[in-house]
C-alpha cells in the first residue's frame, strides 16, 4: 500500500498576464519506508511538487493523498496538525530560529505538539546526540558551522518520528565531504525508523542514495527508475 498518492497534480502560477505551469498533470505513488529522489534541473518543478506534498501550497488541480487523507481539502489548521503528526521537513538553508539553542530548535515541533517538557527535552537531546551534536546542544545557530546547522535541522525534522521526511536540496549549501556525511546520516535514520524519505536534488551523486529516482522535467514526470542504493540497512 502506498503512503503517498498523487493524482494528476497541476500547479499554475499567474505571473502578470502570463501563466507559468510549474507542474503539469503529475501522478505518482510512494511506498512506506522507501527513499525517493526527485531529480531534475533548476526550475523543473521539483520544489513545487514537494511543497504541495507537504501541504505548504495548494494545488491548482489534482489530489494529494497521504495516509488516506486528502491534503488539498484541508484548511491551514488541519494542515498544521497533519504536519505535526506525519511530516518532517529539511530545508536547503537550514532555517533554524536564531534566538534559540540547538536543543530548543529541535524541541520546537514537540512544543507545538504539546509534548510534556520532560519527555520532549529527553527526546530532543537524544536526537541531537544521534546526529552527532552531543557537545553543541546549548549552541545557537550563529555559533555553528553550516554542516552542524544542517544536522540540527535534520534532528528537528526527525524528532517527532514522522512517517514522512521531505528534504529540499538538503546539501545545496554544503561542501562535498559534508554533503556525503549528511546524506549518510539522513538516509540511515530514515531507514532505521522505516520512514519514507523524499529528497529533492539536481545532483546525480545524491540520487544514488535513493531506492527510486523520479526524473522531473518541465513540470512533468519524465521517467522513474530504480536507484543504486549506496547504503543498505543492516539492522
Amino acid at each position, binding site marked *: 500500500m502506498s503512503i503517498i498518492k498523487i493524482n494528476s497534480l497541476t500547479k499554475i502560477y499567474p505571473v502578470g498576464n502570463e501563466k507559468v505551469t510549474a507542474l503539469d498533470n503529475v501522478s505518482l505513488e510512494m511506498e512506506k519506508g522507501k527513499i525517493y529522489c526527485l531529480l531534475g534541473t533548476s526550475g523543473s518543478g521539483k520544489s513545487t511538487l514537494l511543497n504541495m506534498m507537504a501541504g*505548504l501550497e495548494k494545488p491548482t488541480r489534482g489530489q494529494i493523498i497521504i495516509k488516506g487523507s486528502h491534503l488539498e481539502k484541508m484548511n*491551514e489548521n488541519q494542515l498544521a*496538525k497533519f*504536519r505535526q503528526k506525519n511530516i518532517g521537513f529539511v530545508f536547503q538553508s537550514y*532555517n533554524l530560529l536564531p*534566538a534559540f539553542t540547538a536543543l530548543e530548535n529541535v524541541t*520546537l515541533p514537540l*512544543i507545538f*505538539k504539546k509534548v510534556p517538557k520532560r519527555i520532549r527535552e529527553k527526546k530532543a537531546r537524544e536526537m541531537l546526540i544521534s546526529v552527532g551534536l552531543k557537545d553543541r546542544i546549548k549552541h545557537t545557530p550563529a555559533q555553528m558551522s553550516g554542516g552542524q546547522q544542517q544536522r540540527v535541522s535534520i534532528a*528537528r525534522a526527525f524528532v517527532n518520528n514522522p512517517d514522512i521526511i521531505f528534504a529540499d536540496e538538503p546539501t545545496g549549501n554544503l561542501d562535498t565531504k559534508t554533503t556525503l556525511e549528511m546524506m549518510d546520516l539522513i538516509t540511515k535514520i530514515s531507514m532505521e525508523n522505516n520512514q519514507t524519505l523524499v529528497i529533492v536534488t539536481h545532483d546525480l551523486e545524491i540520487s544514488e542514495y535513493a531506492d527510486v529516482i523520479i526524473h522531473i522535467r518541465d513540470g512533468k514526470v519524465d521517467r522513474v527508475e530504480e536507484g543504486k542504493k549506496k547504503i543498505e540497512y543492516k539492522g
Partner: protein
Amino acid sequence: MGSIDVILIALRNLFKHKLRTFLTVLGVVVGTSSIVIMISLGIAMNESFDKQLDQMGDLTVLEVYNPAYWGEKSDLVINNASIGEIRKIEGVKSATAVVEGYLKFKCGRYVASVNVKGIDAESMEDLGYKTAEGRLLDKSDENQLNIVFGDEIPYNFEKPGARNNYYGGMEETEEREPPKIDAINDKMQMSYDSNFGEKVVAAEEESKNTKPVKPYNVKVVGVLEDNNDYKTKYYAFMSISELEKIQKAEARFNRDVNGMREDNNSAKKGYQSLLIKCADIDVVASVTESLSDMGYEVYSQMDYVNNMKEIAGSLQALLGAIGGVSLFISAIGITNTMIMSIYERTREIGIMKVIGATLSDIKRLFLLEAIIIGFMGGVIGVLLSYGVSAVLNNVELSFLSMMSSEEGNDISTIPLWLSICSLFFSSVVGLVSGYFPARRAMKLSSLSAIKTE
C-alpha cells in the same frame, strides 16, 4: 502549544531585541504614568474638595437675608408671619429668625468682643449644632440669658488692652495657649457698652459724664465642638427675644446718653436674616427654589458646591484626556513595534508554521508579546507614578497647590485601585495594539515567508 511555552517563547523573543523592547516599553511607561498621575491629581482634588465640604458645615442649612434690613429697597419683609409661611414649605424642618449683635463679655479679668446671634432657642438642635461641652439652647432658654459659645470664642478672652490676634490664623498652630477662662463654670458678664471691662481714659470718662452701663449677668451653658464652620465657630448664640430686649435697651441708652435717635422702623424692617434647616440634602434644591419663587434671596452653600463640582469635573476630564492621549500614542508605539517585529521575523513565522505551529499558536505568540510589553510598561509606569506623586506632594508646585486650595493637602493621591486598574488597562492596550499585527503574522503564507532571504 501550551500556555507556559507561549509565555516563555514570547519572553525570549522580547529579550532578544532588548533595545527595541525597551523603547516600546518606555512608550507605555510614559503613557501609563501620565494617565495615572493625571488621575491622581483629580483624586487628590476630590479629596481636598470633600475636606472643604466638611468645613463648609451643614449644607442643609439655608440662609435667607432680609434686604429691607440692610436698607435695600424691597417689598419683602422678614417677620414672624413670613417665618410661619416658610415653615409650611415642604422639606423645611425648621426655620428661625436671626438677629445679630456685637457685645462685650467679661469673665474675671478677661474681656472679649463677640458677635452674638439671637436665634430661636428651640431650633438650635434642629440646625444640627453640636456641643463639645455643656448643652445646646432649648425651649427652656427662651427667656433666659443663657449663651452657647462657638468653639473659638473662649480663646478670644484677653486682658483688657491686649490685642486680639485670633483672626491672624493663630488657631491653626498646634501649640496654642489654652483659653484663659473656663466659659461654662466661670462667672460671666455681658454688656452692649464697648468700653465694658476696659480701662477707660479719664478724660474720655469725664466727657461722657454719665453713670456706667449696668452689665447683664449671663450663663454659658455650652461650647460648640470644633466643626470648621466659620458660621458657628466665631459666634455666640442666645435666645432671640432676649437679644432683642438687650438691643432695645442699647437703643434707649444711645438716645438718652448720646442723643442718637431711636430707630423706630425696626418692626418694619423685620429680622436680619433667617436660618432654614431642610429635612435632608435632596430637598435643598426644591426648598431653595420655593424660597426664590417667594422672592427671597437665598444663600445656599449648594450653589457653591455645585459650581465647584462642575469645575473639578471638567478639570478632571481635561487631565484624563491628556493622559489618555499619551496612552494612545504609546499604543501606536506598540503596534508599530509589533509590525516591525513581524516584518523582521517573517521567515521565523514561516519556519514555525512549517514545523507544526498552528494559526492560533502564531497569533497567541504575537498577542502575548504585545501584552507583555503593555504589562511591563504598566508596572514600571505605576512605580514611576508613585515616585512622581511623592515628589509633587513634597515640592508643592505653586500652580498645583493652588488647585488643591488647602495647604498640607496632597496634590496627588494614587489609591491601590488606580494602580491595579492601570496595570490591567496597560495590558489591555497591549492586547488591542497587538491584535492587528498578530492577525497579520498569522495570515502570512509560510512558503513565501521561507522564500524571503
